[in-house]
């Protein structure tokens, strides 16, 4: 095949999710282990405080158990989880709690993965570059930022479209717009 049209990422893990003989809460915990950090990261980039992100994550996985108990659609549980966490954090839970307006403010409360093999100079350069990138992503308008972050975490365009209730082409436009702005800033 020419020009590298091979898929760069695996398909959604939810598609092959089966309960089998496992207890339902073990299945949910398995999903939690696989996805909770990515969802937290997404919420952090949405400007959600770590406390509220924790609440949203806990509630999303509790709802996942109810969803599975009720034999809900399992074709794409990853997108389902993102959608629930997104709606909880951005619409339902934020009423009584404080939501940060600046995603960078939230990102300050996070840490950066450090490669132990890096030299101090390289580490410093990488850190600086990473900070600039993070700031660039944080300064994107809300929807392009959400699209870019979800795409960066391996969600396919149709999954992002499902989470945000947009068309696939609109998501592609937002990702394109977001990436262009990030490139300009960096």
């Amino acid at each position, binding site marked *: 095949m020419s020009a590298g049209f091979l898929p760069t990422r695996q398909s959604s893990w939810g598609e092959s999710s089966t309960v089998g003989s496992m207890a339902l809460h073990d299945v949910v915990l398995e999903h939690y282990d696989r996805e909770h950090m990515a969802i937290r990261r997404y919420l952090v980039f949405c400007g959600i405080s770590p406390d509220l992100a924790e609440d949203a994550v806990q509630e999303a996985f509790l709802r996942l158990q109810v969803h599975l108990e009720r034999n809900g659609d399992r074709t794409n549980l990853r997108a389902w989880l993102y959608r629930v966490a997104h709606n909880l954090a951005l619409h339902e839970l934020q009423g009584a709690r404080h939501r940060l307006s600046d995603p960078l403010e939230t990102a300050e409360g996070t840490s*950066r993965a450090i490669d132990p093999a890096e030299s101090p100079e390289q580490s410093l350069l990488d850190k600086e570059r990473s900070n600039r990138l993070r700031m660039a992503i944080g300064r994107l308008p809300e929807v392009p930022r959400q699209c870019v972050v979800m795409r960066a975490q391996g969600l396919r365009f149709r999954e992002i479209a499902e989470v945000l209730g947009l068309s696939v082409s609109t998501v592609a436009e937002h990702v394109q717009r977001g990436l262009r702005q990030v490139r300009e800033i960096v």
Partner: protein
Amino acid sequence: MTYAVHLSDDLLIRSIDAELSLDERLYAEPHLAACESCRRRRREWAESLELVETCVASVVPSAPANSRMRLAAALRAQSDSNESSPIVGSLSLESIRRMDARRVPATHPWRQLAVAASIACAVLSGLALQRYLPFMAAPSPDPSAVEAGAENDYLPLPYSSAALSTAQAEVVRVQMPVSALREAGIDVASPDEEYVDADILLGLDGQPQGIRVVNDGSALN
């Protein structure tokens, strides 16, 4: 070969993610194979995506150390509640979420929620059992077993320990549906309220031992 019209950025980005339709692939693949300019632009988009992926992945959001443990407990409580209580089974998730638990001392809100939901479920099923299946219910503890004082207006729940002592118990405030309380034979003097605050006395085993309605100032029964 040079083309007068090049592939759009949207097409290039989606081609990186293998998200083109068959028609789009039939159009884009030969073009890319022959057009150095589009290949270069596609490479640049791929590099941008990789850069952003690396940046996003490098952010490690803070998460409470006991988050997984707390979720596991809440999942089990939710699962047990749904299995053990016919009343709870009919409660929607939304109504469970509306139970506002204020544990003393304060803990994390989601732990409160999980605790409140399981307590309310246990209380409601216990009350229903007491009302509808009195011949099956275990003997209630002697109300005098509850220490005298502010707590002496608690209604003992079936299966609660006869050795209940408020010194060893914990009080959790939850919101209970008025309809469920009335159905269980408990008079609530708040005709217009859908939910009322109630104090639940928890034993050392974490099981609800007694209940009293608090927000309308009336004692139970």
